[in-house]
């Protein structure tokens, strides 16, 4: 859908550009280029944000070196904290992260209502080893661990409670009767 929109917008921009010789002014070209630039930026944002906001299973993750690697597992020693019996949300935060507090609140609220779910907040600057090991490129990035610490899925950017609950449901479908999202 975004592609169609972009095509439409660039068609409009193309029409604008073809008017230019008649207008005889560089101003119109520049204005059209600005419109194209902002439309492309909006399209890119729309596509990236939509994709990033979902919890993606790790095996579909496109980054190399992550799939099934022995490092794709976090132990309670790594986190110096006990893992959740049902699942553990590991959030990578940083000092310059505007969205992190919102995500932290969502996950914290979830641990209050969902038994066996633990939330761990990692200050990325302090744990660059984990940042590199798990190919974290932006904050907030949230990993969802299964009870054994294996990374089940991950997401980044703003997070809604519904998305987090859905990811939990994916993790342990047999215990999801209470969830209606």
């Amino acid at each position, binding site marked *: 859908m975004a592609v169609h929109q972009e095509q439409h917008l660039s068609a409009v921009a193309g029409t604008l550009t073809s008017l230019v010789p008649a207008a005889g002014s560089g101003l119109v070209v520049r204005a059209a280029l600005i419109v194209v630039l902002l439309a492309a*930026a909006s399209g890119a944002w729309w596509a990236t944000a939509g994709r990033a906001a979902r919890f993606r299973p790790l095996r579909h993750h496109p980054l190399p070196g992550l799939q099934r690697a022995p490092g794709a597992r976090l132990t309670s020693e790594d986190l110096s904290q006990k893992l959740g019996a049902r699942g553990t949300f590991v959030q990578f935060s940083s*000092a310059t*992260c505007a969205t992190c507090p919102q995500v932290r609140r969502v996950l914290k609220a979830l641990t209050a209502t969902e038994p066996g779910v633990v939330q761990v907040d990692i200050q990325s600057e302090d744990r660059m080893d984990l940042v590199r090991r798990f190919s974290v490129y932006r904050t907030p990035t949230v990993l969802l661990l299964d009870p054994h610490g294996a990374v089940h899925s991950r997401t980044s950017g703003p997070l809604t409670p519904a998305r987090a609950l859905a990811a939990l449901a994916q993790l342990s479908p047999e215990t999801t009767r209470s969830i209606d999202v």
Partner: protein
Amino acid sequence: MSDSPSAPTASARSAGTPKPPPAGIDPRGPRFGAGVTAVLLAVTLLLGTGPAAAALLTVVALLFVLGVTRGVQGTLQGLAFRAWVRPRLAPPAELEDPRPPRFAQMVGLLVVGAGLLAAGLGVPAAVPIAAAVALVAAFLNAAFGLCLGCELYLLQRRWTPQH
């Protein structure tokens, strides 16, 4: 809640060490400021490569300098937001850490400053190129609340050698 600039002045360099978090700011302030910046940058692009464009880009750079040294709430846009915009809005649902947008101001300053430097060295096309890059970031911030500069922080940390 007042958002008086209680941020430690030395925090620009040591943003990595999470000391006491400074007082929160209204998240709509940086977005409003980014909107103003985006308009200025769009006008810069419309002006092309002449001295007028370079002058306007210099104004934008100076605004970024204010943002880096005083935080976004200390820029002219921040002051305008507090004086004229915020009184007309409902109180914010939540406050935001002022450090991320401040870091983004530094990224903006680097981009715009590099453009002006290259223009000064005889590459006039650097002005519209830098303006276009900064415009995308400012526009995404104003329109969608995405802080592109903030996203670069962790990448920069990854590149710097491990201590």
